[in-house]
């Protein structure tokens, strides 16, 4: 039997479905087809998950390798390790949820909306599945357009501004990264290995680059990823994009697109340029810590729920970056698991905001009050997800933040203390939001708001299950990512390869 190219299937099935659906007239059929395709992709991604046997880094699983442009050493190479597999599953989980939540929320050009979502999924999955730098870059850039269209066509009042800002910010970083990629390739071909294979580059590049060049290249990669993450002070596109994007766009943006940045650090920036990464780690840790505090304070000050959550993303991603660059395996593992956590919790939060916005058509923090009385189920979900987001033990956020702060404290106590303060701030603004929305006097305006519908429950239940699962039993996930994370950051701390975090 011929082995199915599972990774390509998971990656390109959405795009293929989009191409077919483009010829289908009518909104309902397209919506149904798109949802069916994305559910199928999710099932396939679970199959991947079950069949996955952790390879020894830098080996990958489910490898596919086809020569693409021979003379330039470009291959179509796919492959996953624990890190990318988790992110692919997360993408495959969030996309159908985003579709369900948009089922009745999108009124104009529904067909285009669902097709754009499918194209976006292919782009994002491809970013995580590619193991050839050229291919990675192609996916990295290709996903820009569907996201820009999602924001720009189906977004809020300032959607065009937000959409263009999103594209220009991202491209500014990635074009400079392209120059750096080309330079790396040139150096590789100079010594007779003209390849874009990621593992090969990570092996070959560090010894042949001098410190100065390495710093420049690291800067180019880091800038691109820092914009994507986004790290303070490159975050200003994020609040605009999040506020204007439709719910589905926000969910995917927060849930998986931002992870592409931290994934890039873990997969490329650190392994390719270890010395520069070590040299710049204190700087990155410092701006991560600043980002945590800044994001939290900004969140606290917001009166628009979506903007509040957007800034909280800046803070949460600050935790992720803090963990990755802390120089401890525990911290980096925490950063990795926090990437997934943030996807689950913040994805769910954006879904919840979408739910209330559909009913009330406002997102003002102070427009609400006492909603717990009329929407008890909604309130329960909101509180659970809030608690997961602020790190209540037993839910997923706690695992990530605890590991990050624990690991960081060993190496950089000051940063850990700042980070811990950020956790407190997180509780302040999120619980403040919950109080403003759900408790206190109920405005008569909202007295007739219906509680959550079946479809909305269907989107949130899986995420709450994930939040509890990740919170109670994080070990399998930590084991899955331990070896690749250790390998990735071994550049920062060579002795880490022997340490272990899982009991």
């Amino acid at each position, binding site marked *: 039997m011929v082995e199915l190219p599972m990774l390509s299937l998971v990656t390109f099935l959405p795009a293929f479905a989009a191409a077919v659906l483009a010829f289908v007239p009518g909104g309902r059929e397209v919506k149904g087809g798109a949802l069916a395709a994305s559910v199928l992709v999710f099932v396939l991604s679970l199959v991947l998950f079950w069949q996955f046997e952790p390879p020894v880094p830098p080996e990958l699983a489910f490898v596919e390798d086809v020569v693409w442009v021979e003379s330039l050493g470009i291959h179509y190479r796919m492959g996953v390790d624990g890190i990318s597999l988790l992110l692919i599953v997360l993408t495959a989980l969030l996309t159908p949820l985003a579709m369900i939540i948009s089922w009745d929320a999108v009124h104009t050009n529904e067909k285009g909306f669902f097709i754009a979502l499918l194209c976006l999924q292919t782009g994002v999955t491809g970013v995580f599945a590619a193991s050839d730098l050229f291919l990675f870059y192609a996916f990295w850039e290709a996903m820009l357009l569907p996201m820009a269209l999602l924001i720009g066509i189906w977004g809020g009042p300032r959607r065009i501004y937000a959409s263009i800002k999103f594209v220009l910010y991202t491209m500014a970083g990635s074009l400079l990264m*392209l120059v750096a990629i080309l330079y790396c390739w040139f150096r590789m071909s100079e010594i007779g290995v003209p390849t874009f294979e990621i593992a090969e580059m990570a092996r070959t590049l560090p010894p042949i680059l001098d410190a100065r060049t390495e710093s420049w290249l690291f800067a180019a990669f880091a800038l691109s990823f820092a914009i994507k993450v986004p790290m303070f002070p490159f975050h200003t596109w994020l609040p605009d994009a999040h506020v204007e994007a439709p719910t589905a766009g926000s969910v995917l943006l927060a849930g998986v697109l931002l992870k592409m940045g931290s994934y890039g650090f873990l997969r490329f920036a650190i392994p390719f340029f270890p010395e520069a990464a070590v040299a710049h780690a204190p700087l990155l840790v410092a701006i991560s810590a600043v980002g945590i505090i800044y994001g939290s304070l900004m969140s606290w000050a917001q009166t628009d729920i979506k903007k509040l959550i957007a800034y909280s993303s800046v803070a949460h991603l600050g935790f992720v970056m803090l963990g990755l660059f802390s120089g401890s395996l525990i911290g980096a593992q925490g950063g990795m698991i926090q990437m997934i956590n943030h996807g689950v919790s913040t994805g769910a939060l954006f879904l919840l905001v979408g739910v209330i916005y559909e009913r009330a058509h406002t997102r003002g923090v102070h427009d609400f009050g006492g909603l717990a009385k009329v929407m008890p189920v909604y309130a329960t979900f909101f509180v659970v997800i809030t608690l997961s987001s602020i790190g209540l033990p037993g839910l997923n956020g706690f695992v990530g933040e605890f590991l990050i702060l624990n690991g960081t404290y060993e190496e950089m106590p000051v940063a850990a203390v700042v980070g811990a303060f950020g956790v407190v701030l997180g509780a302040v603004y999120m619980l403040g939001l919950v109080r403003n929305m759900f408790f206190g006097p109920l405005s008569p305006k909202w007295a007739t708001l219906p509680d959550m519908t079946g479809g909305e429950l269907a989107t949130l239940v899986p995420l709450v299950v994930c939040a509890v699962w990740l919170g109670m039993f994080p070990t399998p996930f930590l084991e899955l990512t331990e070896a690749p994370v250790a390998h990735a950051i071994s550049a920062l701390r060579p002795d880490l390869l022997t340490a272990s975090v899982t009991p």
Partner: protein
Amino acid sequence: VNVTVLDWIAILPALLVLAAAMLVVGIDLFAPPRKNQLALVLVSFAGIGGACWLLVQRLHLARRPLEAFSGSIVLDDLTSFLSIAILMMTALLVLVANVDTRRRNIAFGEYYGLVLSCSAAMMLLVASTDLLMIFLNLEILSIALYVLTGITRKNPRSNEAAVKYLVTGAFATGFQLFGVALLYGATGSIQLEALGSWLATNGPSPLFQTGLGLLIVGFLFKIGAVPFHMWVPDVYEGAPTTTTAFMSVTVKAAAVGSLVRILLVAAPTHPELWADLLSAVAIATMVIGNLIAIQQTSVKRMLAYSSVAHTGYVLVALAAMHGVDGTLSVEGASAALFYLVAYSFMTFGAFVTLVYVGHEAPVPGREPEWQDGEHIDDLAGLGVRRPWAAFAMTLFLVSLGGIPPTAGFFGKFLVFSEAIAQGHVGLAVIGVLASLVSMVYYLRVVVAMYMQSPLSNDEQPEGSLGLAVALAAAGTVLLGILPNLFFEWATRSIVLLGA
């Protein structure tokens, strides 16, 4: 001079196209007007198809270069490759012009005749290996283009554009002829190879340097590089959009092809004579072209400046033939050739989409100030009214901006990787930043198409227009996803140049 059969075989593809041109004019003369259009289209396609078939056969056989007419013409891979590119664009143009000439009351016999003879001249230009042949063919194609630009005789803008083009073109011709004269004076020959060996033995004399410089300046005029680009926006805007689509891509392909031949055959030993000039012009072209394009509200004019900017990327590749370490590396030229083909598909497609949009309005209106379909407001809501056309236009724009998986991305990838490999990192950085700037105005069109409310233009454009758009879109995507074949041909055409 003995002319043998081989001589004729070497120019057979161009002759076929020329024959089609003559036939088209003849049929138009004798057959009743308005009924003969199908015949004209078929004859044109026959000529183009036959020539293309011959050239593809030759490329597959990969024979050694066939020299003809005492070494003034050569049929080699470079000739074949660029001729195929030019012919593909000509074929697409015939498809479009078929509809557009009827709508604009352009005498289509003349139009096809001019287009085909222009193509034949371009094919011969790429094949020319002596300075006089180069000059002659450049003039033939230019004169055809002057007429094609002014072919809507009652449109003052078209007339103005034609006169402007003629005057600046004559200026450029002056430079070029002077350059040819000086080179002849310096070396006593007009054959490129003779020039090359003279330079190798004697080294650059001031006379030679000046002559080469002037010759290059003439080419820079023709391809619209800054600071010789002033005519581009006016001529591209004033000409009928079909003509603009044609000349914006084919002239560049032919002129750059000829320039590559001159540089690599006549002056390969002293790349420093031309590389610095080209890289300075490349920087100015990329920066100024992109910055001015931002301010345009006419999409046609914006695309004109964008094509100036793209000339800059091509010049980066040419400048990258001269390594920082002083060596000559021909890969830059093959990157330039690939880029030209990619550029042809996407720019042609974008202009033709404008023609398509123009045909949505029931009657041609708004002349002479605007032609239909060229103002950004004409594209408003295209995504709703014509999803496929809008999708194709998005592809062209995204490709022009250099986003994968399109031809434009792979082209830029090749160009900048070559620049970096030869040590011109600064050039590459300026290039990518310039293409970031370009995204601002390409996105503006995407925004208009998808994010603004639609106009009520609901006339259905004719099928062959849609077909031309679709073919250009297919080319744009295919060159991005499967660049192998063309890249291989581009590489081979340069390698076999014997530099």
